[in-house]
Every structure is written in structure tokens, then in C-alpha cells.
């Protein structure tokens, strides 16, 4: 891992020796595979970067409830409805695990929400795409959760203890999400020709946005080297994207669906698929706020937050009143 930083900073030994003693001791702990815990000394930039990363991750879980929540009341069967409800509830839980991990770094929950609502912090670009048909619930579970898992499994080994522990819980729970999505796809792909057409259409629309989830191509990814040295990023974007394609293509073949990429071809020499990169212009456009659903998603979050304000205040007032009564009785 450390070797990755060498390329960007010069010589390995020098990089370590150039650091002030505290920072050097810190980097050495990470290199030894030790976990950094909330009260340990850490460089400001490590703390800042982690708040940004964990915060964005948490926001993605919470905003990620919206495209699927859209279909809970319209699920085709009671069983599918219960499955989807459980999945969306899990996403809320995952957001909460991550918010607590971020809070151990000295940022408050309300500050994190504030940064989401004012656009200072982002969430994954994928959730700015609409979910138009029931087949999209299949595609989201299969592809979006599949890509998320690919990203999260290595993060179980990340250097920051609370983040790593949240990832362990999340990964344990998330495999059901992907399987329920694939199960929907299997049912539709084996259903009527109309259902199969819907499944193919969902794959067509979610394929490239899913590839974008891994972030820009390595050659354009500016923060990677430092994040990898700190072990808050374990693999490069392109590595994970490749892994995702290699795992997903056979799953699409099993469904009898076609991945919407004319250049997709098994490369015997590399032992991996060659594939087309997503449209990066579209990616940057969606990230900067101009995707099909950016405004709607953010408005929904802000509305939930302001609509809930009187409840939060009332519950706090009630708790204070109870505490005072108890004190008076003693």
C-alpha cells in the first residue's frame, strides 16, 4: 500500500523521513496494520479526509433510500414489499452506523446534515438517477448494491477503527440486498416477453451509472495516493471497476440479458473483460448537481429534516420535563 504513495512523492524512505516525528509514528502504525482509534493522535488532513469520506458514505445510504422507497407501495407482491421494506430499513441503519463513525472524529450529526443540505457534502451520483419501473428495483439491488459491496468489502480493513467496524456490519447485512435484487431480475428475465424487456431496459439504464460509482478513472483521481497510504482507500477506482465488470458479466449472461456495451469482450491475455468507460462528462455533470434527480433528492431530504423538527424538539422537551419531575421527586 505504501508503495502507491512513492510514485507521487518521490522516494519511499525520504517520504517517511521527511515527516515530523508524530506524523511519522502515525504512518508507521498504519503500515504495521494497527487501527487508529478516536482518541489517538492523527494528522488534521487524515481527520478531514475521513470526515469527508465517511460523511459522503453515510449520506449515500440515507439518500439511497429514496429511489427504492419510491416502489415500496407499488411492489407486485406482499413478499416483495416486505423484502424491499427490510432492505430500505437496512439502508437507514447503515447510514446511522456511518454517521456515528464520523461523529467520533469530532463532527456533529447536525453539522453533517447541514453540509448535505447545503451541498457542501456529496452523496453517490448513482442516486440521482430515477427508478422508472419495478425492474429497476432488481437492477438497483443487483448492480448498485453489487458495486457498493465491491467498494466496501476491502474497507473492512481500513485504518480507522470505527469506520472498519461499521463496514464489517454493513457488509454482513448487504449481501441480502444484492441477492434480493438479482432474484427480482431472475423472475423478470424468465417472465413474459414484456417483463424481460423491462429487465433489459433496467440493465441498459443502470449499467454505466453503476460503473461510475467507483469514481473517476485512476489517471484523473487526484486524492488516491494519499488515501491509499493512509489505508482509507484500499484499491484504486479502476481496479474495483474491473473486478465489478468481471463478476457481473457472467451474472447478466445467466439472466439472458445483454450488457449494453459493444466493446465488451473477454481478454484472454489479461484474464479480464475489456469494456467501455462510462461517459465521464455525464458523471461530472451529475456530481455537480445536474443529474435527472439531484434537485428532487435533496429537496426530499431537506423536507424530511424540517418536517421532523417539531418532533425532535417536542421529544427533547418531554425528556427534560421527565428528568425534572424525577429530580423533584427525589
Amino acid at each position, binding site marked *: 500500500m505504501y508503495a502507491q504513495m512513492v510514485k507521487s512523492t518521490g522516494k519511499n524512505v525520504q517520504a517517511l523521513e521527511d515527516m515530523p516525528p508524530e506524523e511519522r509514528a502515525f504512518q508507521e502504525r498504519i503500515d504495521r496494520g494497527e487501527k487508529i*482509534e478516536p*482518541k*489517538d*493522535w492523527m494528522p488534521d488532513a487524515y481527520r478531514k479526509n475521513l470526515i469527508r469520506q465517511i460523511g459522503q458514505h453515510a449520506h449515500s445510504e440515507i439518500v439511497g433510500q429514496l429511489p427504492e422507497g419510491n416502489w415500496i407501495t407499488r411492489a407486485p407482491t406482499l413478499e416483495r414489499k416486505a423484502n424491499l421494506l*427490510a432492505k430500505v*430499513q*437496512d439502508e437507514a*441503519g447503515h447510514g*446511522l*452506523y456511518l454517521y*456515528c463513525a464520523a*461523529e467520533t472524529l469530532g463532527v*456533529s*450529526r*447536525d453539522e453533517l446534515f447541514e453540509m448535505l443540505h447545503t451541498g457542501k457534502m456529496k452523496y453517490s451520483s448513482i442516486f440521482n438517477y430515477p427508478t422508472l419501473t419495478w425492474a429497476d428495483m432488481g437492477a438497483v439491488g443487483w448492480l448498485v448494491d453489487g458495486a457498493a459491496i465491491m467498494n466496501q468489502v476491502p474497507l473492512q480493513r481500513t485504518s480507522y477503527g470505527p469506520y472498519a*467496524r*461499521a463496514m464489517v*456490519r454493513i457488509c454482513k*447485512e448487504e449481501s441480502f440486498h444484492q441477492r434480493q435484487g438479482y432474484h427480482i431480475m431472475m423472475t423478470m428475465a424468465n417472465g413474459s416477453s414484456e417483463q424481460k424487456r423491462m429487465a433489459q431496459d433496467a440493465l441498459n439504464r443502470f449499467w454505466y451509472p453503476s460503473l461510475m460509482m467507483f469514481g473517476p478513472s485512476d489517471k484523473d483521481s487526484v486524492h488516491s495516493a494519499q488515501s491509499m497510504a493512509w489505508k482509507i482507500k484500499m484499491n484504486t477506482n479502476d481496479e474495483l471497476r474491473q473486478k465489478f465488470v468481471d463478476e457481473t458479466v457472467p451474472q447478466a449472461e445467466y439472466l439472458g440479458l445483454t450488457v449494453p456495451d459493444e466493446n465488451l469482450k473477454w481478454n484472454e491475455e489479461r484474464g479480464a473483460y475489456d469494456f467501455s468507460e462510462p461517459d465521464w462528462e455525464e458523471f461530472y455533470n451529475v456530481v455537480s448537481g445536474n443529474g435527472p434527480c439531484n434537485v428532487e433528492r435533496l429537496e426530499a431530504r431537506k423536507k424530511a429534516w424540517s418536517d421532523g423538527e417539531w418532533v*425532535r424538539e417536542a*421529544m*427533547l422537551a*418531554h*425528556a427534560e420535563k*421527565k*428528568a425534572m419531575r424525577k429530580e423533584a421527586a427525589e
Partner: protein
Amino acid sequence: MAEKKEWPLWEVFIRGQHGMSHRHVGSLHAPDAERAIKNARDVYTRRNEGVSIWVVEAGNIAASSPSNKGPMYDPARDKVYRHPTFYDIPDEVGKM
């Protein structure tokens, strides 16, 4: 914007079905202890992970300082005679 009061932070401990003792699983925000337990049920036991929940307001937890690691734990290091393997017992004696 006026400073809004946040719900306090609670640390959550859960004892699993076959667990020996309560284990820290994470934290959450709640206005009071009763609500914290209910929230903990929803956030941390969605898959039957526990049979008992403790919640403690985070501010009430005192913790050892990481920078004190040396003076705190070093004294136990050189006392290997506290472990059973320190004492050689001949095989003829049997299992002990």
C-alpha cells in the same frame, strides 16, 4: 441560524444470544434512555443479534487515554508467571 440543541449521544451495548457479556456495538442519538433503547432495538438488532440492550450516555463514559498505554499496561508485561504455561509440569502427572 440559532444554535439548535441536538439529542444526546448514547453508546449501545448488546448481549447476544450466546454472548458471555454485553458488547459495545455503536452509538445513536435519542432524547432519553427509554427512547435510546427503542432506537437501539431498531438500529442494532434487526437480525436477532441480541437478547439484552444497555445504553449509556456517551458523556458518562470515562476512558483510559491512549497516550498512557505504556504506564497503564507495561507493568503486566513482565509477569509471565501469571500464565499457566510458565510452570513446567511433567507429562507423567497427566492433564492439569
